């Protein structure tokens, strides 16, 4: 079963613009993670935010978490063509085992 739903499914922007992707989930979580996938490749971990955190930064990435709304957003600032990829949110559920449940992803296209 899918825990997360990303929105939008696809996003097309110009280099230099900001890209915002949203993720909604259904049940209580331990943490939420964002991953990136280049076409035809494996996923790479980008950033993790714990359930007791509201915002986190890493370079050009900013993640927010609203546990009351069961939602998260990933902001990529000053995007580059190399940011073109699919982005997935994944949640670690409570309680118990460290099994991640993934959303369906947002496809980001950044044009030069």
């Amino acid at each position: 079963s899918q825990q997360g739903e990303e929105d939008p499914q696809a996003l097309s922007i110009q280099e230099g613009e900001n890209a915002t992707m949203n993720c909604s989930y259904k049940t209580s979580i331990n943490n939420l993670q964002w991953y990136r996938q280049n076409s035809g490749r494996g996923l790479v971990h980008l950033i993790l935010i714990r359930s007791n955190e509201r915002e986190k930064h890493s370079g050009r990435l900013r993640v927010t978490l609203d546990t009351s709304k069961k939602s998260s957003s990933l902001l990529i600032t000053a995007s580059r063509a190399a940011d073109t990829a699919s982005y997935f949110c994944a949640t670690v559920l409570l309680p118990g085992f460290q099994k991640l449940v993934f959303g369906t992803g947002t496809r980001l296209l950044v044009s030069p």
Partner: protein
Amino acid sequence: DVKVTQSSRYLVKRTGEKVFLECVQDMDHENMFWYRQDPGLGLRLIYFSYDVKMKEKGDIPEGYSVSREKKERFSLILESASTNQTSMYLCASSMISAANTGELFFGEGSRLTVL
């Protein structure tokens, strides 16, 4: 540099064949996972393992089995491949940590086509 290696990037098999997908990690991680990825469906968990010789069913285990004889190696087996198992298969590993973050390290994927 940490690494999860999947033995085959691309495979083409015929219906009814037995298929082995191999995954090796060099990070001494306890947990290993097999996901399949299909357009519009995201990643779905097939099986996972939290220790040698231990395995747990994920969300879609039907038609698959797994083997974990050594800590570093986790194999996915399709006993009799069918066309609806055409997909991208992703192996991942993670460590057991007190922080319980569950961060995954992925292999490059194995794209399987069943004819």
